[in-house]
């Protein structure tokens, strides 16, 4: 179980999380939606403990992530797999070494076997014949999928996806959604996914939470969210610039600077 209890986090004067609370039960697939810059990635980073809350508590299986001893923190991280928004591939390693990184660090398998597993995981995310390339030779969407393959390679119990389908074409995106669903069903993973893609979130989520102004303002099943009457939620899921959420610096009248 993942729990955020009244978490506060600021960067200098930028108050990003202001009392965020979130509970994700074991085996549940949660999607967090919210505007750009609202702090979704920051939430994920708190869950794996690469950021610490200024105030409040983050626990995973009843262990307080911010107060764990270093050794215990690394132990609990073995349960995690995380896909970073920008993939964060190790650029000094080839694609298959990236995917097999954890396996080779654990030192129990031979390199040939690790490569075989890596190739298989890459196939799961729809990538073939890329295992010997370097990350710098990949497109943005390919990097994302290699990042996903790396996150799932050691079959973790908890998966954190930061925008798994952003930057992918609609067909590949749907295949990734299917993969996420099948990981949940086959491996019973607990997951938190961030996405801007409502189609994708309806498909992969058991429940959806919306982050707005530093707090989770609503949580519900995909159906509940789809039929919500809350004006903020409605505006977000229908993707309209008109409504209670104001987009700074963007007004609805066209501004043209050309004479």
């Amino acid at each position: 179980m993942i729990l955020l209890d009244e978490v506060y986090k600021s960067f200098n004067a930028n108050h990003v999380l202001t009392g965020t609370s979130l509970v994700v039960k074991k085996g549940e697939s949660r999607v967090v939606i919210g505007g750009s810059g609202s702090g979704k990635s920051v939430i994920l980073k708190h869950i794996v403990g690469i950021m610490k809350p200024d105030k409040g508590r983050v626990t995973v299986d009843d262990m307080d992530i911010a107060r764990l001893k270093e050794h215990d923190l690394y132990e609990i991280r073995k349960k995690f797999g995380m896909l970073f928004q920008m993939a964060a591939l190790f650029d000094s390693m080839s694609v298959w070494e990236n995917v097999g990184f954890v396996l080779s660090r654990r030192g129990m398998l031979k390199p040939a076997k690790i490569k075989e597993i890596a190739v298989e995981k890459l196939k799961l995310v729809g990538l073939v014949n890329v295992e010997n390339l370097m990350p710098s030779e990949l497109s943005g969407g390919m990097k994302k999928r290699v990042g996903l393959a790396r996150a799932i390679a050691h079959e973790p119990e908890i998966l954190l996806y930061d925008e798994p389908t952003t930057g992918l074409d609609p067909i590949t995106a749907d295949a990734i959604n299917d993969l996420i669903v099948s990981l949940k069903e086959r491996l019973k993973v607990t997951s938190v996914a961030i996405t801007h893609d409502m189609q994708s979130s309806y498909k992969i989520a058991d429940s959806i939470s919306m982050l707005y102004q530093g707090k989770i303002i609503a949580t519900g099943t995909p159906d509940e969210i789809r039929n919500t009457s809350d004006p903020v939620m409605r505006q977000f899921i229908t993707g309209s610039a008109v409504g209670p959420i104001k987009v700074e610096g963007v007004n609805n009248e066209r501004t043209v600077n050309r004479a």
Partner: protein
Amino acid sequence: MTRLIERFGRAILSLLQKGVFVAEETGRIFLLLLATLRQLLLPPFGIVDIFRQMLEVGVRSVPVVIVTAIFTGMVFALQTYTGFKRFGAETLVGTVVAMSMTRELGPVLTGLIVSGRAGAAMAAELGTMRVTEQIDALETLAINPVKYLIVPRFVAGLIMLPALSVCADIIGIIGGYFVTVVLFNTSSVVYWKQTWTYLESADIYNGLIKACFFGGAISIISSYKGFYTSGGAEGVGKATTGAVVLSSMTILISDYFLSSWLFG
């Protein structure tokens, strides 16, 4: 008058702030050093990573070290020979070259070269890994980044600096020999005799102790600068220059104190 006092006060204040900043940074570097030492002693020991860094820090620096050492030895011999000739002491050239190379120039020049080459590379590489979230990714994969990234660089620095420094000592002495014996046509027997008679083994190993210290300092300082980079590509640039400046300064300043302790 009050204006002047005000400006004076401000200047002092900013100096104090700089002082506090330096103290803080020194403290954080020490904390990183402690964390590194702790991780160094805990298994598993990433021998492969250490060898890779030894190659990076050490072997790749050999050409630059050779060129620097040979010309330093040569110019030292040239200046000493022509200078000492004034009071008829030109037979001492071998001694002067050997002593200055082993006690001073070998370790310090190697240190400066390595901080410019390997130190900059360390800061740039770790800095890039930081700003592209690769270090965060390591943590989420349950790999301790201090152990995985900094320990091998630290060990490589400790081992390779003395090794390069020995190399510089020998080549410097050969450079001195070339100028004194071959160019100035003096006796090769005298040169070697002068080299060996007055050179003590303490000169050599105290020089190597300094080199070892410089190696550790370069690795920790440069890793620190890279590891705590923020602010994108610009931040990486700053970390890289910062690493070279701070490790060179540390080498030159600590060299005095180490020398007065080891040789004083």
